[in-house]
């Protein structure tokens, strides 16, 4: 630790204004503040502050994603790790470039995007495509809006949407059978022999319902981080308990999803799958817990969050059951992102009216 401190102190002058690497000051500061909490003091009242900062906040999301991530590595082999590394490397580079251009600090937001993005990709995806997707997601989903905090859409979903539309066959034609046993696929790069054509949601369109146990544990085909329902739920509950994810979004989207899916199922049990199956299959849970709850791209107001969740839950069921698409979560959340500002505006309008009457 001392050595690291010395390294920072001895190289600082190069990164100051006018120094050799003056332009890279944001990078230097980000690294220093990463290792050593920032030296900043409060300037005015309140003189003391809560220990929670954005780094910690984002760290919580990453911790919550760990079960699903580890499950992904276990099921789909070490190549999963490579996908994550590519995602972080490309996403991080773009973040740094923009921070340098804008002369702003590097934002922690990409730490989450960089991990969330691989989890919604199929395990067979070519590595270059991972890079392209994350680049698109960060650039178009975030940076052109002005960076973290100002983005309209969830960057990970923008990247995935781009790949889904641009490379449909790579994104949905080939799937891996998950590894099994004590070591799963942990000892291999990835199992080329275990290729198959369909996910549970896809099979369902053909009238085959996967069994509930394998959906819970994740021994079905699917995107890297979307199959292990138990891991996702554990992480999601953790996020809600730490107040990082807002429970209102989760309750309203899951609730509306369950109710509507049940209604469909009752109406025509042969055509529409049972509720539990709908909940545990595909990307619903990961989307509900980790993407719909992204605070920046969801409505700010609590009232708005209720409606937002309902929109997401409802649209997902409708897409899954009534269209040719097998998966509806991604479009539902992107749609939710679009209407989020309007929902906010409506709620704010009502609240301000009430406040203004209080003169």
């Amino acid at each position, binding site marked *: 630790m001392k050595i690291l401190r010395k390294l920072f102190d001895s190289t600082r002058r190069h990164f100051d204004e006018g120094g050799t690497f003056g332009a890279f000051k944001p990078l230097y500061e980000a690294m220093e503040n990463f290792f050593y909490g*920032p030296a900043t003091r409060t300037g005015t009242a309140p003189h003391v502050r809560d*220990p929670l900062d954005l780094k910690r906040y984002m760290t919580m999301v990453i911790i919550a994603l760990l079960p699903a991530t580890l499950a992904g590595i276990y099921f789909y082999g070490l190549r999963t790790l490579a996908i994550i590394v590519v995602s972080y490397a490309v996403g991080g580079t773009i973040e740094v470039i923009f921070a340098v251009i804008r002369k702003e600090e590097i934002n922690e937001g990409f730490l989450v995007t960089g991990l969330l993005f691989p989890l919604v990709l199929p395990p067979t995806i070519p590595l270059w495509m991972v890079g392209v997707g994350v680049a698109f997601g960060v650039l178009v989903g975030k940076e052109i809006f002005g960076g973290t905090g100002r983005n309209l859409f969830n960057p990970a979903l923008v990247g995935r949407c781009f790949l889904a539309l641009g490379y449909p066959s790579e994104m949905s034609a080939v799937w891996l059978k998950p590894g099994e046993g004590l070591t799963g696929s942990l000892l291999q790069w990835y199992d080329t022999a275990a290729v198959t054509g369909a996910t549970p949601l896809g099979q369902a369109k053909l009238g085959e319902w996967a069994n509930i146990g394998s959906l819970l544990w994740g021994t079905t085909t699917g995107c890297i981080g979307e199959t292990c329902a138990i891991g996702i739920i554990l992480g999601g509950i953790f996020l809600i308990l730490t107040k990082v994810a807002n429970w209102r979004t989760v309750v309203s989207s899951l609730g509306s999803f369950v109710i509507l899916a049940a209604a469909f199922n009752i109406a025509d049990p042969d055509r529409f799958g049972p509720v539990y199956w709908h909940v545990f299959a595909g990307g619903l849970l990961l989307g509900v817990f980790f993407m719909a709850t992204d605070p920046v791209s969801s409505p700010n107001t609590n009232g708005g969050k209720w409606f937002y969740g309902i929109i997401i839950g409802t649209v997902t069921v409708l897409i899954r059951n009534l269209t040719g698409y097998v998966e509806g979560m991604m479009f539902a959340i992107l749609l939710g992102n679009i209407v989020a500002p309007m929902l906010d505006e409506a709620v704010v309008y009502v609240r301000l009216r009430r406040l203004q009457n209080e003169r």
Partner: protein
Amino acid sequence: MSQITKCEIQLEGKPADSVLEMPEPRKLFIPLESVRFSFDSVEVEENRSVQPGQVLARDLNNFSVPLLAPRAGKVKLGEIKNHIVLDEITQQEEEPYDHREDEAHIPQEMGSVGLKRYKLLALGAWQFVYDAHSSKLPDPFGTPRAVIVSTVNLEPYTAQGEAQLQKRLADFTRGLEHLQSLLEYQPIYLVMPDINSEFSRQLRESIRGYAWVKPVQIAPKYPGDNFAVIARKLGFNKEKDSPVWAMRTEAILAIDRALTLSKPSTVRIISFGGPMVKEPIHLKVMPGYPLKDILAERLESGPVRIIDGGVLTGAMVSEQQKGLTAECNGLTVLQEHSEREFLSFIRPGSDRQSYGKCFLSSFRGAFKERLNTALRGELRPCVACGFCEEVCPAGIMPYLIHKTLYSGELEDVEQMRVDLCVGCGMCSFVCPSKIDLRGEFVKAQEDIERELHAEEVQS
């Protein structure tokens, strides 16, 4: 209006209820500026001897509220910038109040009530009274809708009513009677903690039989003690020209002193606490008491920040300030942050408490923390986590006001009722993006008053 959510700030160094009487000072350094007042109109000359209770200066923008000499002494004006220095201090009996010249200001129709109210102003008791909604000094001759008297001070750390009232409960009830004699029919709400302590039992006992005093119990959770929060809870919304008066224990004691003994209140009991104070306690002091003498030998070693008031709303005491201000009700001493912690954001954190339950401490009960002046993170754009709204006692939307302050017009900000912000500081405290929300809103309130309502004030 939202409830006070569970976000408690537990700071080390709570002052004990006991009161330490500070030794007589040899010199007093009385700052001309305090939180609400600036005593610009100086009424004494260099080297003049003054009597205790004599007017040193007035704030002409605040109903000419006077700055009184706490002791007899010799005036030095130029010695320290923005201070009146009293040298050669001697302790003398205050001259009893006589019907002094400016009684012409009293509205005729008020009669004896007007005389009494003027006496409060002249004897320095009125400066302890607040407009509950704006926390400004109300017009002493105005008509309030109601009066709130609070014995609760929840901000860490400001003077506790309990400490100030020791052995003075009889004076307190007599002060309440005086207060009532100034009013017509308006109710007096007496705010006390909703816990069964000896103190609240005595308090309840002492006001038994006063039908005009309505006890109000509040949970001892900051910022529930804020006057505006209490007023709105009691159903008194902000209304122009019809204020709610609010005051604390010391105001009632000062009123009693003024109207029973006709003497000025210059000595007061303040809190002295915070993690860097060796023995946190209450102090009996007077305005102008040399800070040096208070702090010497009483602090832990290391860089410190002295705060006039509590940690959430108090103002930093500058190097230039040499003595206690006229309004000071507590000194809080924090350590200035200097040590950077290795990989702080991934520590388990059983030693730090947070509103967001992101630290291991969530599994243990509440404990007192040794907080310092660290910002504890880096400034970031708002991520819309919503914490600020959840903790705001005013029921407004801090993040929205913050965004509008950057992009919109001041009129829009006014529409969002930034005027309801009571400046409690909870939003800034919890914000993970470390945005100075409270500071922005306090400034916006001033800007709105100056730019949008300038004409109203003049007319």
